[in-house]
């Protein structure tokens, strides 16, 4: 199974300056899988995603779509289809919704591709079609998160990395966003989701990794989600 994995991460350690905040993490994401990474604040979840994108310094092996991408730059990793929706959403606040989406399709070279992706994004998030001429930073938190995900979809992801998309959203909006991710996954998109809100994420994920103080402490399959005491123990420690 590991050899056919979409993403295979071995012994990934990451640091900010000299402080190591992620220690020897092993993570795999199979084709079409929805993987959750859970853990409390400061466990290293964001760092894991940033290291995958080379937005944080790291060591270890990262194999993505059969390529060892350890030496690839951030933008080349994106070109291979590894697309991050960052924690702060990273929207281009002064641009309109439409412009944000178009920039998202930066790596797409021809117009029909871009139009097709626009159509897909507007089908997933009809709200973005209504708001297409609005300046991004003037929208509500939920709409901004839709835009962040929509923009990532414009990039034609093979693997979507999401950093706490529910953060700061009303419970209803948070669960709407996450069920949209579930639908995207059922449509074939592989997802690596980092979340603090475990119950929401576990409803959708096929497998979950629990991260605590920079280490992956356990890995759970969907059938273990309900019963596993380890989850509660590591999560609330």
């Amino acid at each position, binding site marked *: 199974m590991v050899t056919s994995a979409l993403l295979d991460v071995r012994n990934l350690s990451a640091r900010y300056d000299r402080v190591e905040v992620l220690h020897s993490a092993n993570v795999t994401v199979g084709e079409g899988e929805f993987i959750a990474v859970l853990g409390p604040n400061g466990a290293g979840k964001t760092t894991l995603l940033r290291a995958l*994108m080379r*937005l944080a310094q790291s060591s270890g092996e990262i194999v993505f779509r059969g390529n060892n991408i350890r030496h690839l*730059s*951030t*933008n*080349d990793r*994106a*070109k291979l289809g590894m*697309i*991050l929706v*960052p924690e702060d959403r*990273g*929207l*281009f*606040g*002064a*641009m*309109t919704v*439409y*412009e944000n989406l*178009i*920039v*998202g399709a*930066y*790596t797409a070279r021809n117009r029909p591709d871009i*139009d097709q992706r*626009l*159509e897909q994004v*507007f*089908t997933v998030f009809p709200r973005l*079609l209504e708001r*297409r*001429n609005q300046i991004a930073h003037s929208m509500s938190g939920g709409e901004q998160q839709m835009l962040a995900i929509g*923009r*990532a979809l414009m*990039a034609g992801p093979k693997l979507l990395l999401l950093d706490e998309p529910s953060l700061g959203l009303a419970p209803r909006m948070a669960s709407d966003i996450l069920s949209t991710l579930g639908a995207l996954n059922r449509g074939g998109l592989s997802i690596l989701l980092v979340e603090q809100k475990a119950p929401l994420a576990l409803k959708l994920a096929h497998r979950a990794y629990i991260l605590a103080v920079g280490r992956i402490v356990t890995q759970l399959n969907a059938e273990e989600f309900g019963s596993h005491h380890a989850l509660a123990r590591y999560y609330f420690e």
Partner: protein
Amino acid sequence: MRSPVITSNNPAARLQIIFGAIIAVLLSALIFVGQGYLITVMAFAAIYGIFVTGLNFFMGYAGQVSFGQNAFAAIGGYGTAILCTRYNWDPSLALMASMALSVLIAGAVGYPTLRLRGHNLAMATFALGLISYEISAHWESMTQGYMGIPSIPPMGIGGLSLSGERQQLAALLVILLLGIMISGRLRQSRFGRALSAVAGSEDAAHALGIAVFRYKLSAFLISAAYGSAAGSLYAHFVGFLSPEAFGLQMIIWGFTMIFLGGVGTTWGPIIGALLVALLSEAFRGLKDLQDLVYCTVLVLILIFAPKGIVVFITSLLRRRREA
């Protein structure tokens, strides 16, 4: 449902085009009716307009900071002055050769420094401006130091020379308009959107596949080319060059223009250049205190109208209409 191919409908952009058209008409009218000093003032506005349109690529579109853009004006100015007075080059050829040199030097300086962020980059560019000033002041065998280089021929192509100030102003305006058109077209292109993305969030742009460093470097090279052209045109228009022409004052003026008019907009910097050129006439009596006035204006704008005077006035009008 077939998704409509929508173009972004931004009211501020339309307003800018109207502003631009009004200014273009006014300036063209000036060529015919303007007299003596007014023509000189407008020529300076046009030269600075070219300078700040270039600076706007780097500081506005790409959202970076450079305190050293005067270095490229100095290379352009001295390049053209030396080539024309010593080696009898054709002015337009000298302008282009100096531009090429500026872009080369911008590449040599930008390649290592543009990997730096924030303060480091600003300091590196500041040093570049200071170094260029010191060279122009002290490499006397080449630049004739503070004595300056006199008798620089006016602009011209081949044997054709634009001797009258009116003709020169017309040529400057044509070059300025060309520069603005390039700037406007590039802004609306894939290249321009990628620059705006870099300005918006470097990490997010990078993670969407945009080669951030390459875009920053391109914006820096383009702004160096514009700056160099402005410097050359200045030398040809005034006919005399000394180090003060491209000193710290140029940076203060450039910043005031770009922020007064609206940083990151296509026409804003031009509006700023025009206003500052006219203001400089109003404040001529102040002499050495002029810089103090510009710095004060700059600080006030950054506090009260950070998006520039055009956006400031339109939002004031809108508020009044709604009140």
